């Protein structure tokens, strides 16, 4: 699986990189041709194609590390903000089949675009979406969920990789 994965290549040292952080589980490297100097990738060393496959404890650590990178680049560079960005699936802009977070330095008027045109939904459309999402959320084993609807626990920790997610995995495998 890790063969031909550019991030696994970086972890192995087969592909040179500019590391900013590394421990047992996590690596952070500068994007050599990033949107701006300081643009950083934060990823698990172990190969996981999509974020749903990354264990919860590690998800927490990855984002905490992204926050640390964000603070460090903010303090080291003349920038005005940062984004922490995850693309989950090709449709969402995921470019490598190895789950990773991007920390992107921002300045007013730069040419990064992570904004959108707000959409206006009718009350009915909003309610339909609310019902659909709530139904699934209530059936999931969420950590520390306040709702009483904690009947079944398919798997502890909510690391459920259902067939639906395989779509993302399969699609990512076909990256040319």
């Amino acid at each position, binding site marked *: 699986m890790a063969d031909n994965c550019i991030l696994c290549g970086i972890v192995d040292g087969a592909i040179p990189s500019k590391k900013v952080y590394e421990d047992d589980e996590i690596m952070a490297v500068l*994007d050599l041709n990033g949107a701006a100097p300081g*643009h950083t990738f934060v990823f698990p060393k172990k190969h996981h194609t999509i974020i749903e496959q990354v264990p919860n404890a590690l998800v*927490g650590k990855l984002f905490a590390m992204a926050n640390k990178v964000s603070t460090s680049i903010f303090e080291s560079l003349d920038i005005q903000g940062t984004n922490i960005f995850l693309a989950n699936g090709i449709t969402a802009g995921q470019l490598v089949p190895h789950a990773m977070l991007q920390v992107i330095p921002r300045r007013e008027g730069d040419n990064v675009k992570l904004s959108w045109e707000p959409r206006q939904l009718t009350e009915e459309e909003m309610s339909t979406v609310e019902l659909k999402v709530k139904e699934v959320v209530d059936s999931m084993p*969420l950590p520390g969920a306040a709702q009483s609807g904690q009947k079944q626990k398919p798997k502890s920790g909510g690391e459920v990789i259902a067939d639906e997610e395989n779509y993302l995995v399969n699609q990512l495998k076909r990256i040319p």
Partner: protein
Amino acid sequence: MEQQSPQDIEALKEKLKSMSPEELKEFQKKHCIFCQIVSKKVSAKVVYEDAKSLAILDINPANPGHILLMLREHYTVMPQVPEEDLKGLFVTAKLLSNALLRALEVKGTNILVANGPAAGQKAQHFMIHVIPRSEGDGISFVIPQQELNQKQLDALAERLRERMGTREALASQKQVYVPQKKKEEAKPAAAEPPLDDKPVAGPPERQQEEKPEEGILEDTGQKKGGGNLDDIADFLAKNG
């Protein structure tokens, strides 16, 4: 809050500066729409809540099902959030992303945080966006690539390693990392074609955009990752 004149904003900035941290936090909470949603003074479509966090549907979404996930506690920016709360919140973000994939049968999600107005932060209450994505949904996120000065990047990487305590982290590893072990564990799967033969970290196929080099790496020194009072005042003036 009504439309403010520049004088009003200046006065507000002065007032904020004279407040104790506790007073400031109270003041912010009072003027924060999301704190009012948390305390149920303002209604919202809540799709998830627990003791520490709350997830609502954005009323002006990027796509239907766009979730705003926030802590009940008011923090203006991410660096102010205690690490344990941050970890828990992102685990919830992952699970909500998973829920969107199932509930709406979308083909992907984005998880996004904007730190600061220049990064697109609009609310004064720290939050995570979880956005469902579909083919042709009209959202075009652009993260351009550019040629960077590799020597400057080396210097930057060195500085960041120092700040992040990377050497210490590596030294404390129980064993030397053995990459081969990992490959065996990885589950077997269809062959993945090579992504790119260039030995660079940048993923391929990104929208290419040329931009001339800029002078970087000046250490400004005075900036802090935390909430800047002037920014908070501006937020309040614009969004109050």
